[in-house]
């Protein structure tokens, strides 16, 4: 059984571990760290924080596995209605960098029906090889056949890294594949890198509520799997004419069996604007003052070619639907431009938008926390400023 201990002779009493512990499990006694085992979750944050190697996490060494058969970086390329989703290009961009560091091939994995032509195109986005499984049962995503096929591919071709989008499809699929293949999986990575010597995928993600970043590894398991949210990585450039080797796989019919049945795919255009796809978001909060005022945001968003977001209080007040909610219980977004109008900037909201490239905040309260993360801040009345901005951008953009 795993355990943790403090090497007292190495502990300098610096308290870095106390600050690192998200569970309040460490205190100092006689200038030495003491871990309260009732609170400790063995998360390892203190071990990583200690600069003196004074804390050791002991883990039962499982049977040493030979991992050398695993090679190549894979990207699961999500398609809907036969169209490869833009997240795939972003993952191929990042995957290319990782594959080059490891000195291996970048492989795209494409599941669908009638996807041969689309598969060919993936070479132009940097894939050296495309594993294509084409079958009518794979036309639209369903958990069982997609998991079945992915597991078969992993077992046969043994990739060392798999990247997948943190989308509804990606998160549902890869979680199942990770269990079936006994692999480590890290969700929502915001940074990926390679430890070349150990051939480890270094997966960095926000942890314990967002204000601490953790780097996570899976040293003794392959493949190393990570999901990445949309818009976090840069798209791979298109290299016209670049070809990839296509590996088409055929599996026995039972691989494609599904216990669930997809009866219908309903698109709610407009009704659910996908704010996580938008490059520009104009978001409003309680400070907008009412539903009518909230409509002004739509006009500004329209001029800018963006989408409308909202804080939880605006959604709770029924000024706009839940699919527009940004923040902890809504969506996490990272657009190029986020204009926060009448949003005070509670931590739950900031968690959902603070990685936006440029943030503009308009609020009448000069002490609103939103100004702490804003690139440009304006203290003033949203109901005067939003129409003024709409007018100005209309003029500048000739709309």
């Amino acid at each position, binding site marked *: 059984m795993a355990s943790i201990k403090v090497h007292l002779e190495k502990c300098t009493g610096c308290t870095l571990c106390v600050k690192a512990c998200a569970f309040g499990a460490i205190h100092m006694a006689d200038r030495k760290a003491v871990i309260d085992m009732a609170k400790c979750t063995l998360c390892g944050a203190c071990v990583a924080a200690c600069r003196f190697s004074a804390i050791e996490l002991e883990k039962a060494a499982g049977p040493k596995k030979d991992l050398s058969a695993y090679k190549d970086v894979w990207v699961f390329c999500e398609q809907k209605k036969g169209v490869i989703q833009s997240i795939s290009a972003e993952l191929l961009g990042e995957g290319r960098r990782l594959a080059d560091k490891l000195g291996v091939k970048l492989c795209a994995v494409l599941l669908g029906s009638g996807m041969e032509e689309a598969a060919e195109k993936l070479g132009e986005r940097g894939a050296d090889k495309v594993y294509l499984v084409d079958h009518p049962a794979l036309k639209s995503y369903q958990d069982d056949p997609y998991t079945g096929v992915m597991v078969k591919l992993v077992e046969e071709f043994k990739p060392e890294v798999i990247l997948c989008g943190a989308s509804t499809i990606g998160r549902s699929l890869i979680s199942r594949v990770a269990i079936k293949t006994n692999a480590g999986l890290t969700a929502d990575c915001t940074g990926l890198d390679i430890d070349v010597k150990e051939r480890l995928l270094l997966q960095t993600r926000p942890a314990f509520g967002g204000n601490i970043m953790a780097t996570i590894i899976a040293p003794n398991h392959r493949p190393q799997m990570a999901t990445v949210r949309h818009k976090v990585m840069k798209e791979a450039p298109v290299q016209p004419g670049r070809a990839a080797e296509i590996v088409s796989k055929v599996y026995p019919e039972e691989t494609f069996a599904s216990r669930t*049945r997809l009866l219908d795919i309903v698109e709610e255009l407009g009704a659910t604007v996908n704010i996580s796809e938008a490059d520009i978001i104009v978001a409003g909060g309680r400070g907008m003052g009412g539903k009518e005022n909230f409509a002004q945001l739509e006009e500004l968003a329209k001029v800018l070619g963006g989408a409308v977001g909202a804080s939880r209080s605006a959604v709770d007040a029924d000024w706009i639907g839940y699919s527009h909610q940004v923040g902890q219980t809504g969506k996490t977004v990272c657009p190029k*431009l986020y204009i926060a109008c009448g949003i005070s900037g509670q931590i739950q909201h900031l968690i959902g938008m603070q990685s936006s490239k440029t943030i503009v905040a308009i609020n009448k309260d000069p002490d609103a926390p939103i100004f702490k993360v804003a690139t440009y801040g304006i203290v003033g009345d949203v109901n005067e400023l939003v129409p003024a901005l709409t007018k100005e951008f209309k003029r500048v953009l000739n709309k």
Partner: protein
Amino acid sequence: MNIIVCIKQVPNTTDVRIDPVTNTLIRDGVESVINPFDAYAIEEAVRIKERCGGKVTAITMGPPQAENALKEAIGLGCDEGVLVSDRKFAGSDTWATSYTLACAIEKLETYDVILCGKQASDGDTAQVGPGISTHLDIPQVTYVKKISEINEKSAKVERMTEEGYDVVETPLPCLFTVVKEINTPRMPSLKGMMRAKSAKIIKWTAADLEADPAALGLDGSPTRVVKIFTPEPRKGGEMISGSPAEVAKELAELLKGEVV
């Protein structure tokens, strides 16, 4: 109908403040609450019971104080609570957590529906629900926003997607992870709170589960943390002042690069 709802106790982020010096979360005095997404799972479990009859069992893996979350769940209409707690589970990542919960669910004899929140607010992985269904080898539907039909044999549900929703039919038993849109959770009733107070929570340790010890806790977790760091706080930028028209003009100039 036997309905299981998996819940997690998380720090209440509405209490969380940020230390302005270290830029880390201040956790002193932060109370623990049921993961906000799990509240929708509890409510939906109770609604299924009201529609079809049966029993709702809330289950959690966590430290001894997670018992409070189960009592709260009983107050909200669950019939019983199971606490799976042991030092041997410490250090579990999503692989080991879903394995442990799956082992506990198997010990519960029969189940028709398992409900989970779409993700926990402290980890945000959305991996444990699908992990449980995979360990149990049952179908799953994630991001469920509506259970439109349900009977002993099957269910018809709506699964939220980026563009709208899918209509999916599934045989039972099945695991659903649910989103906020599925319902509005009720407040605990007085009767419920009384029941919660006197409710006896079933407590299981690792020894009670038919589990592979090597697959539990840190030992059973493929992933581990190697480094933690506090990101540079985002610096507040430039304040712009003037009349609305002046501000708009300046901003339009500054945002030239972003707005094309």
